[in-house]
């Protein structure tokens, strides 16, 4: 089972594995980061790269057919569309007055023993 992997399948497998690694890293970052704007970084950027690498692996596996041309179109849509969604969500939160968390504030609040603002 391991011996009959061709070179094309091996390279496609490498790209797919890299894509899955970036997806998992972005999900872990999404659960750990302390503020909404920081979590937007983890999901908007790393997740886009993970999905893009996986798509490149699938295009390499498929070869040069009509299916791979459609996959390149989906790839372009996600490449241009995910940052637009991230930016407009960030703008909506900023215009509604959501507070930006920085490190000096965190140190000051721990000194004063106050609650974190929402």
């Amino acid at each position, binding site marked *: 089972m391991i011996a009959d992997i061709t070179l094309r399948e091996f390279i496609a497998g490498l790209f797919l594995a890299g894509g899955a690694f970036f997806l998992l890293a972005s999900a872990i970052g999404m659960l750990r980061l302390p503020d*909404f704007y920081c979590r937007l970084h983890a999901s908007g950027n790393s997740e886009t790269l993970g999905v893009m690498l996986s798509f490149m692996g*699938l295009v390499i596996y498929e070869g040069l057919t009509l299916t791979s041309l459609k996959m390149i179109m989906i790839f372009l849509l996600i490449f241009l569309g995910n940052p637009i*969604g991230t930016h*407009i*969500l960030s703008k909506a939160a900023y215009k509604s007055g959501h507070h930006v968390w920085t490190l000096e504030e965190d140190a000051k609040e721990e000194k004063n023993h106050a609650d974190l603002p929402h």
Partner: protein
Amino acid sequence: MHIIIVAIMVAVVCVIGMMLQRIYQGPTVYDRMNGLGVTGADTILLIILFGYLDGRPEMYVDIAMSYALIGFVGSVIIAKYLGGKDV
């Protein structure tokens, strides 16, 4: 190749599960919307990988393309609604 695709599908399902935790737990509504956007993009990948398992990638690529268009437009529309009339 079959086993590589099954392994990647397990990883993507784990990521969607972690996003469900964020949707449940997020203190503001913008966190929940963020989790939904990530879930949408991962579902596109999941549909295409499932097409390889089924043996017919041509059909599933068309389905994934329609889902990508509708998901992206829906995400932008809900973000504009949440932002008030200034966005």
